[in-house]
């Protein structure tokens, strides 16, 4: 009898947990927050590219590009640019970012990747 009680209780608990998981209100909210953070990062990358311009990214030295990435970064937003596989040494990816995004640019003389992270406060 005790065994049946335990089995019924376990089954009931499993059903409840499944319902909680299925109806979890946090999951869609988190998805929305993540999507919002991602959009923020994409807008930030767009603003950076628009500010420096593609000719600058095509012709400038790695040092100049890294300096521009550092200037565009702040306490909550970190930029790094990888030029022909070589990343700016000064930019350190946060260990647990809120979101990250990157954009690959195939420019006439080089390929570069702009990476951005939203830092968790």
């Amino acid at each position, binding site marked *: 009898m005790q065994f049946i009680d335990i089995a019924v209780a376990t089954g009931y608990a499993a059903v409840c947990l499944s319902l909680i998981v299925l109806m979890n209100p946090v999951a869609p909210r988190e998805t929305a927050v993540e999507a919002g953070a991602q959009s923020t990062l994409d807008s930030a990358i*767009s603003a950076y590219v628009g500010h420096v311009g593609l000719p600058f990214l095509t012709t400038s030295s790695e040092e100049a590009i890294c300096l521009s990435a550092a200037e565009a970064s702040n306490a909550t937003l970190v930029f790094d640019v990888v030029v022909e596989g070589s990343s700016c040494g000064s930019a350190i990816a946060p260990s647990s970012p809120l979101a990250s995004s990157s954009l690959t640019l195939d420019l006439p003389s080089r390929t570069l990747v702009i990476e951005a992270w939203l830092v968790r406060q």
Partner: protein
Amino acid sequence: MSAQDNLASSAQTSQIESRELLLEQSLAGSVSLQALAQVQGYLSSNPAECSLLVQYLGSISGSGSALGEDSGIAYAANATAVEARSASTQAVRGDNLTVVAPFSGYLAGALNLQAALSVKEVGGGGSVSLEKREIHTLNLPIKPDSASSLCASTLDSLASALSRSPCNATLSEEAFGAALPGLVEEAAAQGFALTAGWGSGGTACSAAYWVTLVEPGVAGATGSFDWTVHGSGVTA
């Protein structure tokens, strides 16, 4: 679907849209830059003839394209640029392809190009798409108008100097030598390096003369380059 599911769904759609906008900006810029790079490559490796400058500029074209996928968004973009024969009112006002500034928009006296640009993106499993077909004005800051007038005036001056004593090489050399410094100075004032020479025209008492104008260090879209124009003539 609950309100929270709707929120998540619209946030994801918004995320795809913002990614598509970012891609549209970078693709439009990079394919336009590729087209400019092709034109620049042609200019730097193909000297122009003074007498054929209009045809030379009219034959110039450049293109760029990109095809791929990014974050679940399939994209295709291309740009084709040809010489803009005249400045449209819209082009003079400015061009909104600012991501390739200062090579976007009309620049008086420079090589202006009309670029047909198209970008197509499809994301979210086909639910979020973006399509653009636009005409933009781009420029490369060579000075074809200056080169043309400088070439014509230089050839006129050389013809005049060499025609004064048509059958006397010594006097012709003196006249050529006397005319040249002023021509070099005038060209330098307009940003060109001028070299010129002369020799026998092949028939009795005629002289052949030639001039090379180099516009050095033109700040192009993919770095600086030299643009060269040649001209020549023969005295009667």
